[in-house]
């Protein structure tokens, strides 16, 4: 056990897996001597050399496309895209190939790649550096989408993602890269994909979040506890495949659901969760489902981005609305 932040935990996971798997290759922009713009790959080039930690030309589509070919040949490419806003260039490779190689070839070729990318707002960055369009990837059959919310989670989920035989989009919440430190198990530590976790138990309302948004959600739950409202908090961890069972279980108990994400509202992940609840737990619902989300506008530049992002107050308000219905 060592006390690490998310950056360090991911670094440790990469190091651990690179030691075990000689075919694991890291590719990305500035991940070598610079250690990545967030320093996630710091020091790895010193240990594993420029053969396995590769600074690439500036071409996101190329990086993902090349990784697909590597994976088909038998390597385990783990790719860093500098910011989620630059992943759009690689959409065709992801949707038309990574997600389909196994299906297309009836299993003859597979695509065990991981695309890591920092995502989300609140880091006072320029335009395109605060995206959270996870729903694009959730809507793409054949991809898995994973979002860790703490350092230990990051390590455990990343190891699972790398070992997963299918392509995984691993979204790292940039806002909390260094905000939390916690004990992270040394060595092997794997959290299976596809399983949400209940972070706080409660009977009055279910709050559903992931990544950076989990933290204001937990604060909101604390504030509500002071007023005697017991919130259950679910950390989704894997957005695709979504752990519907865990969500249903909780909402069947509480009868109320608040879904929190910073992505734009329309066709976001919250919509899918609400739809599933509405299909399968309608009779349990004692109040309208509330979505606390970003607006259907591009996230603004730093001066006003705070008014775009969900915060504790809004989550509390939404939960109280649900409970008070």
């Amino acid at each position, binding site marked *: 056990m060592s006390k690490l932040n998310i950056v360090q935990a991911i670094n440790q996971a990469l190091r651990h897996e690179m030691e075990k798997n000689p075919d694991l290759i890291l590719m990305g922009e500035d991940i070598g001597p610079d250690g990545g713009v967030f320093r996630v790959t710091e020091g790895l080039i010193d240990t594993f050399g420029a053969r396995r930690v590769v600074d690439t030309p500036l071409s996101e589509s190329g990086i993902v496309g090349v990784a697909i070919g590597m994976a088909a040949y038998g390597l385990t490419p783990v790719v860093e895209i500098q910011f989620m806003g630059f992943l759009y260039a690689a959409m065709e490779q992801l949707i038309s*190939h990574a997600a389909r190689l196994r*299906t297309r*070839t009836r299993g003859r070729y597979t695509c065990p790649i991981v695309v890591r990318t920092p995502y989300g707002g609140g880091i006072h960055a320029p335009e395109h550096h605060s995206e959270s369009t996870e729903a694009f990837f959730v809507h793409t059959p054949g991809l898995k989408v994973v979002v860790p919310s703490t350092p230990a989670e990051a390590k455990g989920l990343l190891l699972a993602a790398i070992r997963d035989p299918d392509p995984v989009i691993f979204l790292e919440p940039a806002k909390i890269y260094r905000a939390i430190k916690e004990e992270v198990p040394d060595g092997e530590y794997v959290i299976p994909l596809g399983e949400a976790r209940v972070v706080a138990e409660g009977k009055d309302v279910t709050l559903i979040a992931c990544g950076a948004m989990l933290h204001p959600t937990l604060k909101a739950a604390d504030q509500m506890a002071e007023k005697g409202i017991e919130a259950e908090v679910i950390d989704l961890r894997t957005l695709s495949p979504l752990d519907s069972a865990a969500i249903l279980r909780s909402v069947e108990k509480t009868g109320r659901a608040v879904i929190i994400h910073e992505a734009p509202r329309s066709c976001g992940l919250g919509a899918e969760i609400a739809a599933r609840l509405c299909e399968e737990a309608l009779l349990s619902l004692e109040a309208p489902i509330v979505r606390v989300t970003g607006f259907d506008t591009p996230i603004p530049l730093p001066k006003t981005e705070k008014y775009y992002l969900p915060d504790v107050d809004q989550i509390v308000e939404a939960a109280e609305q649900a409970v008070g219905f």
Partner: protein
Amino acid sequence: MPKKVLHEFKVESLQILDEAGRVDRALWPGLDEKEIKGFYEAMVLIRTFDEKALNLQREGRLGTYASVQGQEATQVGSAAALRPSDWIFPAFREPGVSILRGLPMRMIYQYWSGDERGSAIPEDQHDFPIAIPVGTHIPHAVGAAWAAKFKGDPVAVATFFGDGATSKGDFHEGLNFAGVFRLPIVFICQNNHWAISVPLSRQTASATLAQKAIAYGFEGIQVDGNDVFAVYTAVKNSLEKARRGEGPTLIECFTYRLSDHTTADDASRYRKAEEVAGWRKKDPIVRLRAFLEREYGWSEAEERATRQQAQERVAAAVHEFESVPPADPEAMFDTLFATLPPDLLRQKERLRKRLQDEKEKG
């Protein structure tokens, strides 16, 4: 030096077998009679396969099909130069390459009939299946070449694409990676002068496609794509260079698409009959046959036997194709992920119920 020439570049072209079927001995790649006749048989086989595909399509037994007529020399020349251990990444107009690599013809028919099983490449073949989105498979080929180099495997990679593909970002990003990392790969551009209805002049203002390699710091060459010896020589040299660790090559095969773009197309809408007629005279099969006649006294009987044999092989493939059990709709779930997650299992259940209902209704 205030104004100076920094660098000079040139693009060369290669032709060994001219349009009359005469070869340039100085450039002769050292093929023996058996090999050459093998080339011819292969070209006839591909043409026969292709003609049958067009028939099958007309009869409604295939969906869309992209004919390869006119481009047989690029396919045979390339395939002959490749080793089984090499990897290939085709676009969608390389049935010839795939057949020569060992892909059962039945599977190609299956693919174009709309059945994914046609892309389930046999385990012993290092070939990617057809890639539909133009140019997007080029980076995959680059990745495989990189992986081969990473593992120290004595393997080279070849990828095929058209003139249209050179306009796409994937072409650029792929070739650029290959240049930077000096990867063992050969980029084989089949410049057949058309991208559906868009002529080469609308695809690029560059005088050749071969010269695009200059942008990536490696060699490009234009070969007569209707000359199987030139293609063979260029591809072989480039593969060897790749395996020696000397990096990539771009080969522009100057050729022509004699048919419509696909069976869904009507090329007479946009190109002149005279243009097609002009290229028909350069038919790579006719040209090689002229060489065989001149060099080996190729007889009518040999010709008939070759065609006969091709017909028989193709007929057998059609028979196999038609004997395949129907595609199973549930398969759409079976190879989506290594393990199907619970919600998808439920979706599959729903499909199963739909199939059941349908069966019951008759």
